[in-house]
């Protein structure tokens, strides 16, 4: 690490910082202020500062707690499986084989597909009457009658999680694939000479060499998935019987109802939770530099 008092780094970060400040500084400040007000635009005459009342109100709302637990499941399983499959896919795509370029290109398809189409297609495939997933499972002899996947509480959340896993695999695959390019090949050669097997090489060379990328992509993906709404919304709108309403869907619904005070309050709670998730990484990240 170099030069403490140089103007150079400030010039380098200035464009990024200014763009961000220009666009979201005022809106975010405004949203934070709204969380301390009874800010319901359906009743604009009643808007007033009410301190922490919104925060108290959401803790008494059973829907809030339900949404919170579902958010953990949604993020935990969603990002977890995206990462596992994405990592495997990246390792596979790093091999050389005939047609690799084409395979790499088509692997990106889920990520390119517009969110609304992903939601609608999965919804259509899950359909309890004409859906292809029920048909496949019936043909394979796994099921004897159709399951209305998105119409019952037990299956709705796992079903939407599978859709988000599908959508997120390419992101991990691409980032990890790029990071793998930076692992010096002489490290593997040295390991070969020591007689290391593939699993040993994976865990003692590959993973440590790309651990920063793994941490960063996991972190960014957690933030992204925790805030994502479109796939759940087009598949189930948070139903049936609230069974797929995550915190972000709840916030989206409240914001669409123009109950912005409560929506902001929940958004801030979600942001605080996400900050808690990022702190360990930030600490590691900052400590290493000192």
């Amino acid at each position: 690490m170099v030069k403490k008092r140089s103007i150079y780094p400030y010039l380098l970060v200035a464009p990024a910082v200014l763009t961000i400040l220009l666009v979201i500084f005022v809106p975010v400040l405004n949203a934070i202020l709204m969380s301390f007000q009874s800010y319901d635009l359906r009743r604009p005459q009643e808007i007033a500062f009410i301190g922490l009342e919104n925060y108290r109100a959401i803790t008494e709302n059973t829907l809030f707690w339900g949404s919170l637990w579902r958010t953990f499941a949604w993020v935990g399983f969603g990002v977890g499986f995206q990462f596992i499959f994405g990592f495997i896919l990246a390792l596979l795509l790093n091999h050389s084989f005939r047609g690799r370029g084409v395979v790499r290109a088509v692997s990106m398809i889920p990520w390119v597909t517009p969110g609304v189409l992903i939601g609608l297609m999965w919804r259509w495939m899950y359909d309890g009457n004409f859906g292809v997933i029920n048909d496949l499972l019936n043909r394979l002899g796994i099921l004897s009658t159709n399951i209305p996947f998105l119409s019952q509480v037990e299956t709705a959340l796992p079903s939407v999680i599978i859709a988000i896993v599908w959508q997120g695999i390419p992101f991990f695959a691409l980032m990890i694939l790029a990071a793998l390019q930076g692992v010096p090949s002489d490290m593997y050669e040295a390991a070969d000479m020591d007689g290391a097997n593939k699993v040993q090489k994976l865990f003692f060379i590959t993973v440590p060499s790309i651990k920063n990328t793994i941490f960063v992509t996991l972190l960014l993906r957690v933030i992204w998935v925790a805030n994502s709404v479109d796939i759940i919304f087009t598949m189930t709108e948070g139903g049936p019987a609230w069974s797929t309403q995550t915190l972000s869907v709840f916030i989206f619904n409240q914001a669409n109802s123009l109950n912005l005070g409560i929506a902001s309050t929940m958004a801030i709670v979600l942001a605080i939770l996400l900050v808690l998730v990022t702190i360990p990484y930030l600490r590691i990240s900052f400590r290493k530099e000192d």
Partner: protein
Amino acid sequence: MKKQSILSRIFLLYLPLIAILLFILFPFYWTFITSVRPAEDLLGRVTYWPSSVSFEAYRQLFTTTVDFFAAIRNSFIVAALTTAVSLTVSTLAGYAFSRYEFIGKRALMTMFLCNNMFPTVLLMIPLFTIMRTLGFLHTPWSLVLSYTTFTIPFSVWLILGFLKDLPMSLEEAALVDGCNRRKAFLKIIMPVLGPCLVATGVYIFMTSWNEYTFAMMFTNNATRTIPVALRNLIGQLGVRWDLLTAGGILTVIPVCIMFFFAQKRLVTGLTAGAVKG
């Protein structure tokens, strides 16, 4: 020896690859056959092959008020501009964060990470006012500006992650050789950063290619992007499956072709020689 390696290639490479590809590609296949099959095929007994094939939906996308060509063009303009701007700005910032120590650095890095934690739906009314005040409403710039705001922080962190995974010895060797910092950056860092920039660029491009909420608010019929055009096909009278899926296919294919060429840069840029060098 040889036999074993073929077997291991099958079990460790081809089979898992085929399994993952089946999972990834099946919904895409389903989207495609929905776009070419007659509407009657959709209901009743599930068939895995269209009873007849028609590309009528693709024609309608371009000849009706959907005007999909304009949507693709607009999406492309916005995504390309956003990628160019974000990638440049993020690379500079990412480099500064990874190689310099300066006051306020941690605060800025934390701010960048927190930037995307807030749901955009809550920011809409003031953002709309800002865009209108700036005169950006209904122009691609409103989207470029909003997208960069959300792609820059992520890109900075991604690039930072990649830079940290790169061995410091590379650059130090160059500095010892008498390069100045800028030259070291351009000559040494940039080439090995290639795969990372491609990956980050793809991330930015895809994000702006598919974004709906801002696009809905800040565009009009002339500047609307693909997601908005597609959303117009879902009315109260149901989903126009033929047009929607055809639109989806046309959204995916050009980007995949572009990625096919871009991925050639995703090869080992870092050789043993470069490190020793």
